[in-house]
Structures are given as structure tokens and as C-alpha cells.
């Protein structure tokens, strides 16, 4: 009993007070900063990219495929590709994930997630998700678990993961959606009461990521149902996830 209390004193406050402006270490690879004018179109970055996220004419990176591995940055002699530590990467449309030289941090943030009245009027104070790992490598799953820990504590904003799709307002999908999980995923979606939200989390879910050429995937689910939120990352950082969901459910 006394040991537990002592431990509590020892720990002090651990949560991040202002989650929207939480500082991020500069080493973090977030939103890419591209400089098309100094790119000499050698194409080396395109060859080294494991997922084909890069396009060189003009220089652009598709964040739905990007694993943020930094291989392109390391190979570029002209320093045309850099990664900023900006972590608010979630968008509501897949097209918005393509980053070019013109798209700065402000620009990206401004158009990323549209405010929708039907969403904030219902989910403003509470949104509960059922998470489905459809072939995920446990990276995104661990980060989603971390989003609920004492540091990030997304529960204080009313965001939580629940045990059953019957209790959920939406599903969060991680992983490239394997053939063996396709049925279970659809079953889970159908079991969720309307109105329901679909969130894709991580490069694998968004595009198949490093597994996109695998013959063991079945991504038909995504053709059938509308996706509301795309959250890139490999794995998605808890701050990226929480901020994307907050932008989605709140008036700005």
C-alpha cells in the first residue's frame, strides 16, 4: 500500500498537457519537405524506395505508400528530399496525401481534414472504435495501444477502443488486409451500428505498403465501403492518430 503510494509520488504527472501542440523530437521523420528545383532527376530515390511512393517529375511523395524509412533522403546528393518533424498527417481524402514542393506545412494542415457538421454534431465529445488488425505487423497496433497510455491518454478526449463492434462508432483498420482476414473484417464492419466510420491507419492499410505486391492480399473491402480518414505512418505515431481523430470530430 505504502509502496504503491510512494510509486505514485515518484511518478508525478506524466501526461502531455496540450496534445495539439505537443513538441516532437527533431529526429522524427514526418511531413516530407521537397525541393524540386535542385532535384537533378537522377531517379536514384525512386529505385531505392521500397514501396514506389516517389515520383520524380515533378518530385512528389505519396504518403499513402511512404514508410518514412528515409532511404530516399539518404541517397539524394542534392539534399532535395528532407523530412520535417511535423506529425499531423491525417487527411480525409487519399489525393490529399500526395506531397509536392508547393505543399508546405500550413498548406497541408489547412486542407487536410474538412470540418463536417454531421460528424461533429454527433461525435464531438465521444467516439469509440473497434480496431481490426488485418495483417498488421503489430507496429501500428502497439502505437494505437500507446495512444491510450498515461502519456498520450486519448481517453480524456472521449476517444477509446472498445471490445466489440456492437459498441463502436467506427472501425480502425491496420495492415494490408490479407485474404484470410477479409471475411472477418467485413463481418466486423457489418456488425457495427450505423452511422459508422472507417479509418485506415498506417502505410499497409492505406496502400498495402511493403506488401502491395503480395498475392495473399484481398483489398476488395476498400472498393466496397467509403473510408473517412486516412492516417499515414509506418507505424502511425500516437500523436498523428490522436490529432487526426480530434480534427475529424471537432469544429476547428
Amino acid at each position: 500500500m505504502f509502496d504503491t503510494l510512494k510509486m505514485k509520488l515518484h511518478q508525478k504527472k506524466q501526461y502531455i498537457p496540450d496534445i495539439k501542440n505537443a513538441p516532437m523530437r527533431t529526429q522524427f521523420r514526418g511531413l516530407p519537405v521537397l525541393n524540386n528545383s535542385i532535384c537533378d532527376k537522377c531517379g536514384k530515390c525512386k529505385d531505392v524506395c521500397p514501396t514506389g511512393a516517389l515520383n520524380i517529375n515533378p518530385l512528389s511523395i505519396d504518403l499513402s505508400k511512404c514508410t518514412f524509412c528515409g532511404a530516399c533522403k539518404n541517397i539524394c546528393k542534392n539534399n532535395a528530399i528532407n523530412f520535417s518533424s511535423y506529425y499531423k498527417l491525417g487527411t480525409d481524402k487519399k489525393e490529399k496525401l500526395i506531397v509536392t514542393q508547393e505543399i508546405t506545412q500550413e498548406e497541408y494542415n489547412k486542407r487536410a481534414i474538412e470540418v463536417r457538421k454531421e460528424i461533429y454534431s454527433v461525435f464531438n465529445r465521444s467516439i469509440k472504435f473497434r480496431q481490426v488488425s488485418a495483417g498488421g505487423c503489430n507496429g501500428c497496433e502497439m502505437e494505437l495501444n500507446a495512444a491510450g497510455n498515461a502519456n498520450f491518454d486519448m481517453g480524456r478526449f472521449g476517444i477509446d477502443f472498445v471490445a466489440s463492434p456492437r459498441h463502436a462508432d467506427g472501425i480502425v483498420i491496420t495492415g494490408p488486409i490479407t485474404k484470410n482476414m477479409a471475411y472477418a473484417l467485413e463481418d466486423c464492419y457489418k456488425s457495427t451500428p450505423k452511422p459508422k466510420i472507417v479509418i485506415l491507419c498506417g502505410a499497409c492499410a492505406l496502400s498495402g505498403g511493403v506488401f502491395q505486391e503480395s498475392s495473399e492480399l484481398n483489398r476488395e473491402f476498400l472498393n466496397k465501403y467509403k473510408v473517412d480518414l486516412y492516417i499515414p505512418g509506418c507505424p502511425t505515431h500516437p500523436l498523428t492518430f490522436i490529432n487526426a481523430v480530434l480534427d475529424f470530430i471537432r469544429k476547428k
Partner: protein
Amino acid sequence: MNYYTMKNNERINLLDIPTIDFNALTAQLAASNLRPVSFFGSDWGENIKLYVILADDENKKLLVTSSLINKNIKEYDSITKENHQYHMFEREFYEQFGIKPLGHPWLKPVRKNQDNYEFFEMQGDETHQVAVGPIHAGVIEPGHFRFMCQGEKIYNLEIMLGYQHRGVEDLMLKKHSNQLAESICGDSVIAYNMAYSQIMEELSGTQITPKAKLIRRIALEMERIAIHIGDLGAILGDIAYLMGKEVYGVTRTLVINTMLEISGSRFGRGLITTGGVNFDIDDNLSKKIVDILNNVKNTVEKMTHAALKSSTVMSRLEKTGTVSLETATELNLVGMIGRSCGINLDSRFDFLDDFYKDLKRKPFKATNDAYSRFKIRYKEIIESISFVKKFLKVLEKHKQENLCVSTKDLIPNSFAISIVEGWRGEIVHVATTDETGKLSRYKIKDPSFNNWYGLSMAVRNNGISDFPLCNKGFDLSYCGFDL
């Protein structure tokens, strides 16, 4: 027996591996007491070649042999009948190549054909089945658990996996990359990427600098520290000791944020590349790592002390989910779980390299239960912290060296093996190249491949409410198994 003896992280000529008669090989394996490390088939022109790698743990050697099987052969006498250590290997070989092991007691699908899966059933008064999954209550990976219970008591647990099957071994042949290796199992990023990079370096004859090797090992131990701390929290969370869950949770954040400072990713993605590492650890960072680890050690010691003094914690942990040493040996349990059952296997020390040979570790007194699995994590955290500090000291001597060297093309007709002790246990990667120098087979074995069956044994005759506690104690990988 006719074997080629090799070391860990060594390339040998594919044609040096002896080829022996298939029936003679299976008969010898059934009678052998050497531990199987890998057992897999590979297409060989018109035929199938079966490679077997055994570990001679007493003499710290790896033995390789092979057998050429005609494609007309459709069945053989199962090894598992005599030697249970092969039961998963034979199931996998049957699924991949269709050669049936006759008399295999448990020949069920491994990763495919789940629709035809027949569960073991028990009938009688008040017996009932509990089906869990593939989607679980928590945020974890998918798998199906089928409990045969009478009242609250579990008589049998059958685990059906394969939901995560992404065809990694085939993808490796199509387009292999460090990023793919990292995504095989996202909680052992460093260990998987290290095994892949080492195998590529062996196959191409590249020598990397001691500095790169050291940074890899620092990251490997940091990964072990982080995940073990997270697991301690998860175990306590499952027995509703929430103080422990949260404290370990935030302590883990400190470690993985240090990884972020080293490599730009909380799990160390992008740190290791074929030929070396991408990021340096300079003096400032080194000092910072030591400070944080001291802080982490202090918190973990205090928290563990407080938790284990609590009688409610101890009553849940002690004598729950016991796996006897005999069962563990029979099932070939490896890694941390093996050590918690008294099997003293650790590939870091069994296949010593220049860096681990001076390090000391204390023997662990295994009690084979959930308490043992809690305690071994604590012991390994404290040990790994001291290892990282020692590695950082050695790193000072290698400051001037390069981080990364350029790699060459793969050498044709080669065979290489790389075993890395991840936090779960030995991660075995084996690769072969064809006559043009392209990868012709890439085989991965996660420690979970051995250990899933141990979980089934652990929960037998326990209450079903203790299953989460046992599951978290084992904390096995679904994606590392399913590939």
C-alpha cells in the same frame, strides 16, 4: 550422420551440403536428440530439396544436411511420431510442398485452408466450447482460440493461426528490402532487420565495421528493454494491477523515445541497413542514453519491488500456467519462454561473437509459471541495461570508423544462416542463392513458431479467466508465425 558443420552468420557453398537419402534422413532425425532449428523445402529443378539445420547445443555448433526428394513421392513416414520437436516443421513442410507425413498425430493447416480446419472436440456432461477471435477484445493481432472447458476449467486450447499470412517468404524473393524485413514482425524490428542484413552481408561477402555492429547490438538490447517493460505492464494490466500497468507503460515510452532520438522512429525503423547502420551515436547522445537508462532502471526496480510485495499480484502469478521442463523440452520451446521453463538457450551466448563474449549474466532460477515469466523479463531488463552501457563504452574506441560500407552482388550458389536473439528468442533466417546470384529461397522462423504450443500446454487445467494472464506472459507473435 552426414552433416556439414557451420557457424552462425556464415556463408557456405550450397553444393558443400551433403545430400542423403530421404528415408534415411527422417529415420535419423527421429532418433536424434539434436534440436531442430530449421526444416524447410526448396524447389530444386524437377525435385524438391529438403534442408535441415540442427543445433548441437553442447558443442555450440550448427549442423546442416539436405535431401533430394522426387516430386512423385507424395508421402513419407512422419518424424513427429517419434520426436515431437518436428511437429510444426512437418505441418509447414506438408502445407508448402504437399508431401504427407504419414502417422503425424496433429496434421492440421498452418497458415492456409482455414475453412477446412477441424477442431479437436471433447464431449460429455457440462463440457462446452469457447471460441475467441480472430478479432480479439484488445488492440492486438488476429488469431482464433478454441477452448474446451468444463465449467471454468480449460481442458484443451487449440490455436488456429494464419490470418496474418502475407506471403513474406515469396515477397522476399520478388523484391527484398530492409523495410520489408522490418515489417515481418513490427515488434522485433531491430532483430528481424539485423538477421536480414547479416544474411545479405554474408551472401555478398561484405565486412561491416565493428562500430556498425555495436550500434546494432545497442539497438537490439534497447528493443529488448522496451518490449519487456511494456510486457510487464501488460501482465499487471491483465490482473487489474493498474498502477503497474501505467508506470511500466510510461517507462517504456522513455526507452522508445530514446530509440526515436537515435533513429527517427520509435521502433528503430530505418536504423539498420545492409552494409551497416544509417545513424551514429555521438558522445552527447551516448551520455543521454546512459542517463535515461539509469532512470529507467530505478523506476523498474522500484515498481517491480512494489508489485511483487502485493499479495494480490503474487496470488495471481504464482503457480498459474505452469509448463514443466519435460514438456518444454519435448516441444522445443526457445528463447525467453524457454528460459522461464528452465531451458538455458540464448543464441547471443550460445553462438558468441566478439561483443557478447566478455559479458556476464546470472543464472535464472526458473519456477515455470506466470511468476517465472514475469521475473525473467525483469532480470533481462536489468541485464540488458548493463549490456547497453558496456557497449556504449566500447563504442568510444571505434569513433573514427565508418557507419556504412557499400555492398556487393550476392555470390551464386550460396547458403547462409543468421540467428539473432530477439526479445522473444532466436529468430532464424536462412537464404540460398541460385547459379545467377539471385535469392532462390528465403526461410524465416520466429520463436513463436516453437512456442505457440507451449501456451496451449500452459493453460491446461487452469481457469479460463487466467488465459489472458498466460497469453500476455508468453506474448507470442501472430505475424512472425503467419509470415
